[in-house]
């Protein structure tokens, strides 16, 4: 029994060791670091203070890595207050949320949860004010 457990453990470790380099090759950089469409505070063609909820919906629908099946829309009256979604592989980020005020984007939150580090972010945004 102990021998079988050891064999299973060795097999799992072997598979994990094989998959890790594959994951490292296929995984993309964070969507925060690799945005070919625009510069912060714009993300993926979505600009705080300028982009409407309808435009955001269309953009998210055609964005690779946005798991559109997980898109959740929070509505009050006839106004969209928030979109939230999960990213899917090979995008390493976790979640995205977009908040609206008065029908326009007010804030965009990308849950990176480790897909980028401080050095990479500072390289993109420059030194912070505070």
């Amino acid at each position, binding site marked *: 029994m102990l021998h079988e457990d050891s064999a299973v453990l060795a097999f799992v470790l072997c598979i994990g060791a094989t998959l890790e380099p594959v994951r490292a090759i296929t995984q993309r950089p964070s969507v925060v670091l690799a945005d070919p469409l625009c510069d912060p505070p714009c993300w993926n063609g979505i600009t705080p203070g300028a982009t409407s909820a309808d435009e955001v919906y269309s953009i998210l629908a055609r964005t690779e890595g946005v798991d559109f099946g997980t898109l959740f829309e*929070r509505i009050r009256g006839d106004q969209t207050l928030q979109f939230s979604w999960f990213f899917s592989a090979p995008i390493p980020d976790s979640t995205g949320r977009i908040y609206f005020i008065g029908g326009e984007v*007010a804030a965009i939150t990308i849950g990176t949860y480790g897909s980028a580090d401080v050095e990479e972010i500072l390289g993109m945004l420059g030194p912070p004010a505070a």
Partner: protein
Amino acid sequence: MLLWLDQGYAVVVDHRSSCPAGDPTQISPGDRVAQVVYFEVSRFPALLRTQSLFGPDSEAVLVEAAPWTEAELAP
């Protein structure tokens, strides 16, 4: 949290311990980033002073920042 007030970015660094506003914590280049937030500065002037727009309670603060209209409040 790192803040670019004028430009409208904020970066929340992932630390195991909590990091309340006004309690500076040392960060390193290799520290993981938990969240990146882009925001419209003019929408959140009061919130930016408290820095409560970011972190675990950010969602509630952002949702509350959307004021109810008179039409929505009407009976």
